[in-house]
């Protein structure tokens, strides 16, 4: 254990004082963040499915993910 043991690492028996509380304020509203599809960070997959690269096959899923976020934040 490192020298800087925070509350969340301590045994429960040592946390009885504030057993029911969050240690800090929870983060509030966040600024909208741009899409960042994970496959774009990677190189070529080298995996083909029915003749297409896996990243291309997965693309519609990522479109669905980011679309859903846009809709909900309106």
């Amino acid at each position, binding site marked *: *254990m*490192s*020298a*800087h*043991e*925070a*509350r*969340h*690492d301590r*045994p*429960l*028996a040592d*946390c*009885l004082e*504030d*057993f*029911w*509380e*969050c*240690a*800090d*304020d*929870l*983060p*509030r*509203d*966040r600024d909208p*963040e*741009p*899409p*960042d*599809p*994970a*496959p774009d*960070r*990677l*190189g*070529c*997959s*080298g*995996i083909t*499915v*029915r*003749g297409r690269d*896996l990243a291309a*096959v*997965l693309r*519609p*899923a*990522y479109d*669905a*993910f*980011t*679309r*859903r*976020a846009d809709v*909900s934040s309106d």
Partner: protein
Amino acid sequence: MFALHAVWRADRRLALWAEDSLLPPDGYACAPETVAQLLGGTGPGLEWLMTKAAEDVTTLLLPTQNGAPLLSPELGRAVQGPRAAVTLAPWRVPSLLLEPGEAAQLLGELYAPGKPFLPTQLPAEGPVDVPYGASLRWLTAIHDLAWRLVGRGQVLPAVATEDGRPYARWRPVPDGDGWRETRELTAAVPPVCRAERSSGHPDGRAAGELVADLLDVLADCEARAALEDEPPLLRPGRVRSPDGVPEAWLRALGSYSGRVEGADAAALAGLRDRLDAWYRSEAPADEPLRTCFRLGEPLGPDPADPDGDPSDDNWRLEFLLQATDEPSLMVAADALWAPGPGLSALERKAPRPGDAFLDGLARAARLWPPLREALRSSHPTALRLDRAGALAFLRDAAPALAAAGHGVLLPTWWQRPAGFGLTLGVRTAQPGLVHDRSLLDRDRIVAFRWRAAIGDQPLTEAELTELAAAKQPLVRLRGQWTEVDPALIAAALAFLERQGSGTMAAGEVLRVALDPDATVGGLPVAGVSADGRLGDLLAGTADHRVDPVPVPSGFGATLRPYQERGLDWLAFMSRLGLGAVLADDMGLGKTVQTLALLAVEHAQGAPGPNLLVCPMSLVGNWQREAARFAPMLRVHVHHGSQRLSGDALRRAVQGADLVVTTYGLAERDAAELRALQWRRVIADEAQHIKNSATRQAVAVRSLPATHRIALTGTPVENRLAELHAVLDFANPGLFGSAARFKERWSIPIERDGHSDTAAELQRHTRPFILRRLKNDPAIARDLPEKVEMTVNCGLTAEQAGLYRAAVSDMLARIAESRGIERKGVVLSTLTKLKQICNHPAQFLHEPYEGASARLAGRSGKLERLEEILAEALAEGDKVLCFTQFAEFGRLLHGHLARRLGREVLFLHGGVPKHARDAMTAHFQDPAGPPVFLLSLKAGGTGLNLTAAAHVIHLDRWWNPAVEDQATDRAFRLGQRRNVQVRKFVCAGTIEERIDAMIEAKRTLAGSVVGDGEQWLTELSTDELRDLVELSADAGEEST
């Protein structure tokens, strides 16, 4: 009054319960259906979700006082009764359970940051505000993060195994900001959320592990929710891939359960590996600070057993943070969390180094999952590994982490692995003998012992047994860790038991010791150590330490000290049955050393003739040198149109000690020569067989002989293919085929520039090659200021014909003339003969401009000159060539320039002073032309030509005093330089005979040889005839 709480259970269900302030003291939580009513009362969405909920009991560790759980602050009830101690105790809490999919929906619906109450309705009581417990607020915040990760597309599909079954899962892959938020949420976790007691978590759960599980499950649920109404990723259709695995997995990514149906386990594992490889291809982040990993060997005992022995399983993978533009700035992770010099230094490079470190660690954990354990702590510093884990890190993780841009620091013994093999120890001295005087030869029986070794360190028997018992690839030996193959160790043990020691012939030892690819019992030979002369040979110091061999008394030369060592070495190699390569610089006397060896063997009565193969232009030289230095040798020359064959050849060869032939004839008469028994084959100017594929080379290599020697002046080490050809001639097969040699040595050394490999090759070839350089001070010491040599050249048929005609013409005319007329005839004939010996074109006064084809192949001297110039230029030397005849100089000037491809200077009497000075300066310039032709009357003074290392007298003033003056006055000898002076003499002609006379009478003043050449005209006709007549064997150059 109610308060809502929630906990994420280890079985991946969300447990909800509510405290009821109105319950009697021995109650605690309300019945689950009340919870359902509370939540369902908010609206139709949650109402429907409640129909999916189950009821169950959750065991929670709660703060307890006076036998009852303390209520949460949301209920605001003051503590009753005396203040007793608060302890932690387990309670069985009735709760509502939701499966992951519904849990995700619920948490999404309940997300209301900033609103502490949930407005709802109860059937009996109407509208009521229910406080959110912190636990529920926290869980909704986690869910919101998971939802946002999916919304940004920060997920990647994976193959997972749950309860032994395969699933397709969407895994969250946060970026730096996402990780930061994760850490903040982890740090904020209310302890109650960790308080579930289950069989795997008797004291509650760790925060990091809880958050990781939550994010994994919730992100997967939200991804599926997003895909629910979308068309499938693959249109249903005929399965194309051979095993259907990618299709089945893709289908499962969009299904509700994620279960992969109908896929073969092995194929699925293959898909997982390929996905892992794809995920590792993430381009390394270009960050000012990067996370580093350092593997430390186990020191001290296992922490679990502090008094125990040093543990082999206590490895430590330390984490550090390094500045990429200043690699020496590297700070251990535990210094990142409090102010200090390390942290300040890093902060100058980038803000918040702690975050950068954690981001890097998170990225690394994706590449090597065991690191995830370290991420669970808020301030990770190191990861403990056992031996298997350390090996896995070294083999798998380290390359992947390094490729992704992390720093990886490995122990040095891993980076330069020492191979496991066998070493041979040889004892040549016979025990019991105080001084062993007998010379080492290849039949001498020596005692040997094999030992196992790592690198070149032999292991004791105890160590080897210990290695074998370890049965692990990573073992510690003498304080050093190393990776070994258990199968090899077992093989070594078996071998040592069977054939570990004994006796063998020295020649056999050498075969093993000198073969770089030798294996014994399936193991590589790591090294050979021997004592005595054998040890010297293997160390390459043999030429300095071998037993001296006395030169027989009839030998016609006194060897210089380095030549004596050369002779000793050649004799030593011969005794050991090893082929030798003598590669001294030109002019150091390879010929005389070889002849000395033959003379020594002749004196010992060694049987069998030696065959010497040389270029045609050197046949005469060998003949003359043999006659001069080793007159006891019976020499037979196999050359010319009249050469012997069949039985006559056999008889001649059997009666000879040395047979001289040419490369051309070695090829043409290969069948005949192969049928004869040779003691030794000597290849002179062995660069003629440097291309091992030529017919000549093949023919020479096919000659059967017990011994072999190659003589060469060209530094073959520079071109490895040539080196192999020469070594392969000397010791056939020892260095493998040309192709294997190229693959093993030439490519790594010449193409890839591996200096380690170059050093290794030198070690293997050193025993076979003796090479001295004339500029080596130790050698130059043994050389006189001027090394004088006679080069015996032959005559072409054309020259011989012209020569004979001129001689018979002279003899006819002087028979009928007297006095001045006679003198005139003699003198003019002598000049003609000189010209003929130089070149027919000079004699015939042919024009000197025009194609050099008119000059080539017509003069033995010209051929030798070209060879010598080529060799000298290859050694980087400059050469002066003197001739009496300006016309010859003019003929040579253009021809040599074309032949050598270099500028050639020509100075003759008609050149004005300023031009002469310019030429001199040009020659002296190190970058200037390497060849200077001079045709000067004996008056050339004041020329500074010290840049020359060679002087060649193409033709002679037949007066030694005049000659020496020309040589010495023409240039001033530098003190540091040893100059080689060559005098060209045509064998079998007047030149040879005059030369002999001059040599014999050099020390005498005056007498027959006076100033000028007048003395020749005083000779009688008979004396003249003897002097000028051409020997019968001259003029055979062209066959």
